[in-house]
């Protein structure tokens, strides 16, 4: 940590300046988080009139519940698919855009805009394309591939639908990062390799790809976080976790159990599990970022 010698001495002003941040963080972050942790150790009725302290019962029940374990699996599969799809497409398009010497700005413009589309809306757009009875893509899948496309009933189709809707929105985000990463790679390196007679593909794998790895790591983390949380909108707008709970990802389950099922204890316990997970990912990332700082000198 690089420490700056401070210059201004007025303590009162310093506290005053940081006060809004502290108040907001305390009110809307720490207080609810603490409350959440407390109620995850409670069994309480929906109206919050009766609460009993039950230690880790909520957690034990959670991990005994096959459905919760299934939901973890679903979440991992969902995030993994979204990451794979959106990162590979993003990287591919970015390297193409980086190769193309002309129209770079135009290309970027045409590929960047889905970033601004809300997940819920991208869900609606894809629902319209993949609607079993009149979605144009669904009809095409049925006719060309002879699939019996039915996201109402088939877990696979429903999962595919939410993965597509979530990945689509994320491609542009990843594209921006990869393009920036690619453009930061010194041209001289590439040219030197070209003189040594390395083919474009060879160059990509042996030079570009390793140099991109920090970006890759960052993008992967961000995509996973996105698909863990932001994708709530997609699920809520398109499948509501169905069919048969096959798209019920963890964050949707928190909502479903807490706000529809009114089971606050279990819902809070699930929130705490998610918090721990995020903290873990954050620590991982910062460890890595520190390494990266040394690496870039």
């Amino acid at each position, binding site marked *: 940590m690089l420490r700056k010698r401070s210059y201004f001495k007025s303590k009162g002003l310093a506290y005053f300046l940081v006060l809004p941040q502290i108040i907001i963080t305390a009110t809307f972050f720490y207080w609810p988080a603490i409350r959440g942790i407390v109620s995850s150790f409670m069994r309480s009725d929906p109206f919050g*009139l009766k609460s009993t302290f039950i230690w880790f019962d909520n957690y034990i029940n959670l991990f005994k519940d096959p459905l919760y374990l299934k939901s973890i699996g679903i979440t991992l599969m969902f995030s993994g698919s979204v990451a794979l799809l959106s990162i590979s497409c993003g990287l591919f398009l970015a390297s193409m855009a980086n190769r193309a010497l002309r129209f770079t700005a135009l290309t970027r413009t045409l590929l960047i805009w889905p970033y601004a589309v809300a997940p819920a809306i991208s869900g609606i757009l894809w629902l319209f394309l993949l609607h079993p009875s009149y979605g144009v893509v669904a009809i095409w899948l049925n006719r060309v591939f002879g699939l019996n496309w039915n996201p109402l*009933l*088939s877990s696979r189709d429903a999962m595919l639908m939410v993965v597509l809707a979530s990945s689509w929105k994320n491609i542009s985000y990843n594209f921006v990062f990869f393009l920036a990463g690619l453009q930061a790679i010194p041209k001289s390196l590439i040219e030197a390799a070209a003189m040594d007679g390395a083919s474009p593909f060879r160059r990509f794998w042996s030079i570009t790809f390793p140099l991109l790895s920090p970006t890759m790591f960052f993008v992967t983390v961000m995509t996973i976080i996105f698909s863990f949380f932001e994708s709530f909108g997609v699920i809520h707008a398109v499948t509501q976790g169905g069919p*048969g*709970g096959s798209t019920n990802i963890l964050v949707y389950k928190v909502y479903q159990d807490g706000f529809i099922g009114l089971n606050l204890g279990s819902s809070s316990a699930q929130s705490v599990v998610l918090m721990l997970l995020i903290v873990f990912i954050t620590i991982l990332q910062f460890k890595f970022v520190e390494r990266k700082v040394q690496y870039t000198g």
Partner: protein
Amino acid sequence: MSFKRISLILTLVFVFSFIESAFAKPIEIHWWHAMRGSRGEVVQKIVDDFNKSQSDYKVIATYKGEYDEVLNAAIAAVRAGKQPHIIQVFEVGTQTMMMSGMVYPVYKLMDDYGYKIDWSRYLQPVLSYYVNEDNKLMSMPFNSSTPVMYYNVDMFKKAGIGRLSKEKPITWDELGEITEKIAKLGVKGGLVTAWQSWTQVENYSAIHDLPFATKANGYEGLDVQLTINNDKVVNHIARLKKWMDDGNRFFYGGQKYQGPKSEFIAQNAGVYIDSISAIAKLQSSVKDFEWDIAPLPVESWMAEPQNSIIGGASLWVFNGKKKNEYKGVAAFLKYLANTDVQILWHKETGYFPITLDAYEKLKSEGYYEKYPYQEVGIKQLTRRNPTKSSRGIRLGYFVQIRNIINEELELVWNGKKTAKEALDSAVERSNIKLSEFAKTYK
């Protein structure tokens, strides 16, 4: 961004609310409901009429979203001490409300404010859903429905099947033959059902006098367990799955988009099981074929089928309000049960008229001769006195339990589980929820 608000937070302004001195303006009564679209308009009309009919009270009805959203909003409001006077809660939320400790029971409210009501003049199978263990009415039934069987008369003709009786139910075996014939016409499927847990498990159990859960379906205690994995229900679900597998005699219409109703309207299905409240929609949107209604099918071994059970919602009164306001609440609930109001409600929405007076008046006006299908639900609901298994279902976390049943049934439909496995798992999963709920109130 209202800076006023923030300065409020910062300065901690105390809000003093003094006991209202007698102002000359009407006392406001708040009612949160989940009636959207045309139903919402009818609700508003009823409220406006009530407000015009007297000058002491003004009812303010607010649409707060879907059923679960209304309940959530109410819970948040209770926690903040700002609950409305009346809230509409769907039937699966009954136990949650009963156990909440926040309710002013309707029978008591009416008593306290001097309304002598002859409860025997109400549709008993509806009341029985909302009574406590002493047979006292806890909430005011408002929009009640029951599932019936719709069928496409033209399609039946093509398949060489005549009209069905409006009183005597056909058997499931007969329905099997019907679906077979209809599937041969080359349509997408014979039978489609909405609300599968409610129609194919809850109502199936009630009609065949099979307990849905122990302790009289949860009426007699909290330590309840589901009993829906009995042979009869398992066989029923397995049969539907078999129909699904052999040539489109049954197909799944989903829960949300594309729904079963639109399949029936698009003539993709010949038979369609849904709530009587679908009548209004079919009346307005079916133009190209004739449809009719029959009671739900029964098994051939059930000579004397029981009544079906209700769905829909009832009105709960929250406690913690002022006496003069409750007076208005009581007056309004009384008004809702007026014959003319009930008749309007029934005609506009398809929901039951809740009083026998309204029902008899409709009869004497010849309404049911004109629309005979409107009577199928009532007759099915009142054909026998309710037993412990057909009175209703009262479970904690019922919303989640229904969700579990829906999930497990979907797994049967898509071939991941057998009927037996799915129902066993539904019972096992629901029992965990039920014991959780029971512990909450110990």
